[in-house]
């Protein structure tokens, strides 16, 4: 249930921008979720529907873009995606691998109506 605090932060930031822009409402919110961020989009949506009621963001649609975690094989240089389980390099079976990225949870942009 840790999505509540991050969803509150999205609302806080969106309200702040809407006020700054003197917008009548926020229509769309664009978010980027890294595979390893531990954030579940359905949970964000669930809390969002609840906490955005009676705010300038009440009708805003959340758009999620998912960013995979890439794995780089240190032995053969192959790159592949981390699906769920950590697996050896599919090209050379090495476990000498490094995870590159996938931790982000970013509020990219919002669309407002003036």
């Amino acid at each position: 249930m840790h999505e509540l605090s991050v969803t509150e932060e999205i609302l806080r930031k969106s309200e702040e921008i809407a006020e700054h822009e003197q917008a009548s409402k926020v229509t769309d919110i664009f978010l980027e979720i890294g595979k390893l961020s531990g954030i579940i989009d359905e949970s964000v949506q669930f809390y969002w529907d609840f906490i955005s009621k009676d705010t300038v963001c009440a009708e805003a649609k959340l758009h999620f873009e998912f960013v995979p975690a890439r794995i780089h094989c240190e032995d053969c240089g192959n790159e592949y995606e981390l699906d769920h389980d950590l697996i050896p390099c599919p090209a050379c079976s090495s476990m000498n691998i490094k995870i590159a990225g996938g931790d982000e949870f970013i509020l990219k942009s919002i669309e407002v109506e003036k």
Partner: protein
Amino acid sequence: MANKRIEIVQDILNVNDQIAAETNKLLHSKHIFSINIMASPGAGKTSVILKTLQKLSPAISCAVLEGDTAPVTIDSEKVAGIGIPAIQINTGGDCHLNANLVSKGIQALDLDNLDFILIENVGNLICPASWKLGTDMNVVIASIPEGDDKPYKYPNIYRGIQALVLNKIDLKPYVDFNVPFFKDGIKALNTDVQFFEVSAKTGEGISAWADWLETKIREIK
């Protein structure tokens, strides 16, 4: 009426990270070393912690922050029982500690007279991974009965750790746990990690882990 797109690009988790950085700065100004201990429920976190504190104390002045999802004080009472200050942090059902809870929790401690703060995170292999607390070190306590495949199934929690304490090694004869396979998974996720095999029950290996920790604590003094 006109629509307008506003570019933001703000890392939402950054708010937590900023508070964590402030906590770390505060603790360093007081020359306090701190660690965040994560584990699944039942790995033996509290048992390992008690044994560790008994080794470190009284030469090292220690305190513990206990994270729990409900106001149960079983763990903090055990720590207080061996004469170490313990602060209970109730997450209110939340599955992990965050930087804000920790920054409030440490205010209840006498920071001028401490060398070391140990934070026991909520027992969970998924959520605590995403939340920095501002500690100098992240440590995972794993245990033999959990199985050797956990780094492969829950890679996130094993990332960014500086030490892995494998507990309940007294159960090795009874469980098919492939230690090299387990270690390969941990090494794939961390460039530099120290392994310790311990048994909180028999006390085996606790000294090696506690001695290493003491060296780290003294480095910051």
